[in-house]
């Protein structure tokens, strides 16, 4: 492994230590309500931001293709659940690939 690769691994591990490992060992006395909120509300807050980040990322790259593909994805998830997760993502990805080359 090259020196650069080892440096990259070291940096990534240091980041993981700070953002993943240390928070998992934090022992703070939360109230029951706060503990419940961390378990139920915080994940939803994270998921909404993940959706915002991922959609903004793709729309920033190819707005029309991304908008149409995500529109199809949400429509299938809400309206045609039997397509399943992989089918939904597959169809949306296919639409994206077909549309991204269009002017």
């Amino acid at each position, binding site marked *: 492994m090259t020196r650069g690769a080892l440096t990259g691994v070291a940096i990534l591990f240091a980041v993981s230590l700070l*953002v993943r490992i240390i*928070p998992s060992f934090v022992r703070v006395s939360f109230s029951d*309500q706060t503990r419940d909120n961390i378990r139920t509300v915080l994940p939803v807050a994270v998921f909404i931001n993940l959706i915002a980040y991922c*959609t*903004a990322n793709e729309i920033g790259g190819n707005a029309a293709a991304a908008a149409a593909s995500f529109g199809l994805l949400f429509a299938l998830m809400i309206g045609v659940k039997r397509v399943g997760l992989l089918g939904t993502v597959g169809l949306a990805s296919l639409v994206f690939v077909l549309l991204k080359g269009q002017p």
Partner: protein
Amino acid sequence: MGLFAAFLVILSINLRYIPMSLSATQPLRTSAPRRFFMAHWLADESYATEHANDDFKARAIIRCGILLFWVASTVAGVMVSSHLPASVSKTLAGLTFPVNAILVALSFSHVANYCSHKLEARARRALLAGGCFVAALLLMRLLGAKYFWLPSIGVSYWLLMPARAAAVKP
């Protein structure tokens, strides 16, 4: 870019894992070594796949499985890519939509589940979730995609909390 600058950039991109770790790994009742590895293996995909009532074993299978598939699919991708026709390679180059789509789909299913909870009016929760989404986009515009995570998650958490508190009021 210097090493420290690279470290800061990577750190800022990954700050979202702090609240993820607090909600998905910190509550686990397990030994320190197991907690260490479970925390290190936390990823967006595992966070979106796990459920609140999953036990340690289920979470370990999900996180290890995703890690192993990452490695296997990367190796497979490198092996296959050398045999692909140039036109296909060109189409697939830099294609990140499927990865983002699966994250969006998994995340959306969790948000939809939250909005459909019978404790409170669906419309109110859906409206709050929509408000959080708009706030996230605005903060992303203001702070950039690297630095918006913690402030935006904090804003979303704050917006969603009154809805939750109102739902559990006796």
